[in-house]
C-alpha cells in the first residue's frame, strides 16, 4: 500500500495478515518523494511479488532486487512515464495511446518441437478479457504466462475526490458478481474512520445478504465447472439454481446482484422479518436441489476423471503465495476473514469454513458445495435471530484512514480508504482475492495436460474484473 503524503514524502504501508492465528502486522516506512527506490521484500514474502509490480506501474517506484519489474498493469501502448496513481496525475485526461509500441507474447521454453499457444483476450463464448500464453511440447503445459489488466478501469484513481457514498458505487460495480462483499468492505472502512458502528439489525442483515451472494456465486462457479466438462444436463440444472438465486436476490432488495442495498452506516433498505424467513426457506429448498446435483456428480466418473488429481496446488505453495478463499481452503489453508477478523454479525453465527487437503479440481468443487451448504445454514440462522431496530445510523465525515476487510465469495478483500478534511476520498486502494489468487494460477496449470486448461480455469473460477479493477 503506497501513499504520497504531505511533506512531501512517500509513505509505504505493508499490512501482513497471517492465516494461522489471524495476526496483523502493519509496517510503515517513509522516505523523501524524490527517492524512488525501495528495497524489494518479494524474495522474503513471495506474495508481495505482484503488489510490487503493480506499485512500480501505478506509482513509478522501483523495487531494488525484484527480478521482473516492467509492463504489468499498464500495457505497452501507455505513454512512457505514466503513473496514474500519482497525485499529480489527472484522472479526467484522455491519453493518446502510443502507436509505435508493439507486443508479442514472451516465450520462455526453448526446446525442439515446442509450440506456444496464445489464448485471448477475446476467446471462448462467455469469457472475460484476459490473455494466456501456454507453452507445450505435446501433452503437458510447461509454462502458463498470464497477461491481465485488459480491464484496468482505474477505479481507485477515479474514486479520489468523490464523496464516500458515491465512491461506494465504484466499490460495488468494479466486480459486479461480488458487489455486496466489496461494497461492505468499503462501508466498513468508512464506518471505522467515522467511529460509527451500524445497528445490530443492519449487521445481521449484512451477513444474511453476504451469504446470499456467496451462495449464488458458488452456484455459478459450479455451473462453470459443469460447463467446462461439457456435462449439459448438470450445467442446465446448476444454471436454473443460479437464476433462482438471482431472482431471490431481486425480490429481497430489488436488484439481482444486490447493488444499492448498502450505505455507509448500515443498509439503504430494511427487509421485513417475514420476508427474511421466506428467503431462508427458499434458500433451503434450493440447497436441497444443489445437494442432489452434488450426489449425482459424485457418481459420474467421466466428470470426476477430469477433476481428480488435476490442477493441484499444494498447501506449501498456497501459503507461500498467500492464496485466499475457496482456492486456498481446497489446499488445506483454513483462512477465512469471517473467522479471523469477524465483521457484520459473523461473531454471532455458527460459521463452518470447510477445508479439503488435496488441492485439486475436485477438492475445489467439494469446498464450493460445502460452503454453499454453510451459507444457506447461516441465512436461516440470521433470518431466525434478526434483532429489531433501525438498519442505519448516520455517519458524520471525519478525516482519517482505515482498512475494511471482508471475505468475498472468492476470498479476502481489503479496501484501504483515506478520507480528507473535506470528507472526500483522498486515497482508495484495494486488494482483491482474484488479484491475489491469479498470482498462483500458474501453479495449477503447469505440468498438467493441455486439454485440462479450461477445466482448471473453471475450477479456480477467478474474476478478471475483480483482479484488474
Amino acid at each position, binding site marked *: 500500500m503506497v501513499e504520497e503524503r504531505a511533506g512531501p514524502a512517500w509513505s509505504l504501508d505493508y499490512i501482513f495478515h497471517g492465516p494461522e492465528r489471524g495476526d496483523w502486522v502493519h509496517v510503515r516506512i517513509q522516505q523523501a518523494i524524490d527517492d524512488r527506490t525501495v528495497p524489494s521484500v518479494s524474495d522474503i514474502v513471495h506474495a508481495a511479488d505482484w503488489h510490487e509490480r503493480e506499485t512500480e506501474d501505478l506509482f513509478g517506484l522501483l523495487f531494488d532486487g525484484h527480478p521482473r519489474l516492467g509492463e504489468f498493469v499498464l*500495457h505497452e*501502448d501507455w505513454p512512457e512515464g505514466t503513473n*496514474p496513481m500519482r497525485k499529480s496525475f*489527472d*484522472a*479526467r*485526461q*484522455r*491519453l493518446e*495511446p502510443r502507436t509505435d509500441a508493439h507486443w508479442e507474447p514472451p516465450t520462455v521454453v526453448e526446446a525442439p518441437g515446442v509450440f506456444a499457444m496464445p489464448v485471448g*483476450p*477475446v*476467446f*471462448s*463464448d*462467455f*469469457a*472475460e*478479457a484476459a490473455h494466456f500464453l501456454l507453452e507445450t511440447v505435446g501433452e503437458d503445459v510447461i509454462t502458463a504466462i498470464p497477461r491481465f*489488466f*485488459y*480491464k*484496468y*478501469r*482505474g*477505479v481507485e*484513481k*477515479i474514486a479520489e475526490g468523490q464523496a464516500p457514498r*458515491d465512491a461506494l*458505487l*465504484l466499490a460495488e*460495480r468494479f*466486480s*459486479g*458478481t461480488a*458487489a455486496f462483499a466489496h461494497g461492505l468492505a468499503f462501508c466498513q472502512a468508512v464506518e471505522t474512520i467515522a467511529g460509527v458502528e451500524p445497528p445490530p439489525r443492519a449487521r445481521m442483515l449484512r451477513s444474511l445478504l453476504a451469504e446470499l451472494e456467496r451462495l449464488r456465486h458458488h452456484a455459478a462457479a459450479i455451473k462453470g465447472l459443469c460447463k467446462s466438462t461439457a456435462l449439459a*444436463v448438470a450445467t*442446465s*440444472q446448476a*444454471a*436454473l439454481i*443460479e*437464476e433462482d438465486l438471482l*431472482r431471490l436476490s*431481486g*425480490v429481497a432488495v*430489488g*436488484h*439481482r*446482484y444486490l*447493488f*444499492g442495498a448498502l450505505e455507509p452506516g448500515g443498509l*439503504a*433498505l430494511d427487509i421485513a422479518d417475514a420476508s427474511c424467513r421466506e428467503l431462508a426457506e427458499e434458500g433451503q429448498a434450493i440447497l436441497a436441489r444443489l445437494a442432489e446435483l452434488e450426489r*449425482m456428480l459424485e457418481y*459420474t466418473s467421466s466428470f470426476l476423471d477430469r477433476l481428480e488429481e488435476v490442477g493441484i496446488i499444494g498447501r506449501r505453495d498456497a501459503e507461500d503465495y498467500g492464496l485466499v478463499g475457496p482456492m486456498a481452503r481446497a489446499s488445506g489453508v483454513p483462512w477465512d476473514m469471517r473467522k479471523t477478523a469477524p465483521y457484520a454479525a459473523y461473531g454471532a453465527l455458527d460459521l463452518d469454513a470447510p477445508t479439503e487437503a488435496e488441492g485439486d479440481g475436485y477438492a475445489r468443487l467439494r469446498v464450493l458445495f460445502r460452503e454453499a451448504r454453510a451459507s444457506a445454514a447461516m441465512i436461516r440462522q440470521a433470518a431466525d435471530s434478526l434483532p429489531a431496530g433501525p438498519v442505519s445510523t448516520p455517519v458524520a465525515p471525519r478525516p482519517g484512514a482505515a482498512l475494511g476487510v471482508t471475505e468475498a465469495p472468492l476470498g479476502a478483500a481489503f479496501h484501504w480508504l483515506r478520507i480528507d478534511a473535506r470528507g472526500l476520498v483522498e486515497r482508495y486502494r484495494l486488494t482483491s482475492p482474484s488479484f491475489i489468487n491469479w498470482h498462483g494460477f500458474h501453479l495449477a496449470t503447469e505440468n498438467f495436460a493441455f486439454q485440462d486448461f479450461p477445466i482448471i480455469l473453471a475450477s479456480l473460477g477467478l*474474476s478478471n*474484473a*475483480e483482479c*484488474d479493477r
Partner: protein
Amino acid sequence: MTKWVVKGLRAGIKSTRYPDAMEGAPGASPGRPAPTRLDDERSAARLRDLCPTAAIAPTEAGVSILHERCVHCFRCLRGDAPAVVRWERDYEWAALERTAEDARRRLGRAFGRSLHIRFLDAGACGACMSEASQLNNPYYNIHRLGFFITPTPRDADILLVAGPLTDAMRLPLCKTFEAMPEPKRVVAIGACALTGGVFGPSFASAGGVGEFLPVDVVVPGCPPPPLAILHGLLVAVERKPPAPEARAGAMTGNQAKESFR
C-alpha cells in the same frame, strides 16, 4: 449417463413464454425509474440532485429519465416522498440507435431465426456478462428462437458488447468487429457500454463503445436483466419493436412506491 437424461426430463419445461407472452416472474427484472409526473419543481430538483449519474432531468410536468445513464443505485426510489420516482417493472428496454434507422443498416429477415452472436467483454464488471450468459440457461433458452452464441467472430452476425471500453480492449474490439463478415450489427448492453457508466470517460476507458463502433441497438441497465438483452436481440432482427420514447407517466411516485413494496 441415463440418470442425467432422466434428471433432465424430470425437470420439465422451464422456458419463459417471452416473446410470445410477457414474463412476470418476480425478480426476473430489477425494474427501472420511469418518467414521473410531479406537481412541484422542488421535488423534481431534489430527484435530479439525488441521481449520481445525471440520469434524471426535470421537465415541465415532472422528471424524464435518461435510461442509458441509470446505474440502478435506487436513490431516486428510496428518497422521501413526494420526491420519489415512478418505478417500472418491465424489461423491454432496448432502443435503436440513430445509425440503425438507416434501412441499409438493418439485418434482413433471413437472420430472424438464425442469428449468431459473439459476446465481447470490453472491461465489464462481470454482471453484464453473467446476465448475458443466462440467455443459455433453460429459463431463457435462446436456441428455441434460433439465436446462438458463437466463440468466433467469423461466424457472428451480432457483436454483443458490455463494458465502458477500456483502453487495452480498444484494439481487440475493433479487430473482432473487422473479423466479422457483412452484414453485421452491434448490440451494446449496460450503462457502461452506452455512456461509460460509473467508470468512464476517464484516463483508462472511453465513455462507451459508441466512440469506436457503429452501435445499432442499445440495451440500458446496470446490468440489463436477461430478458432485456433478449429484447435487444429481437429488436436487432426486427422481431420486436424498440422501447417507446420515454414519456411522463400517469402514476405518481408514491403510488409506484406502494406497488413496488
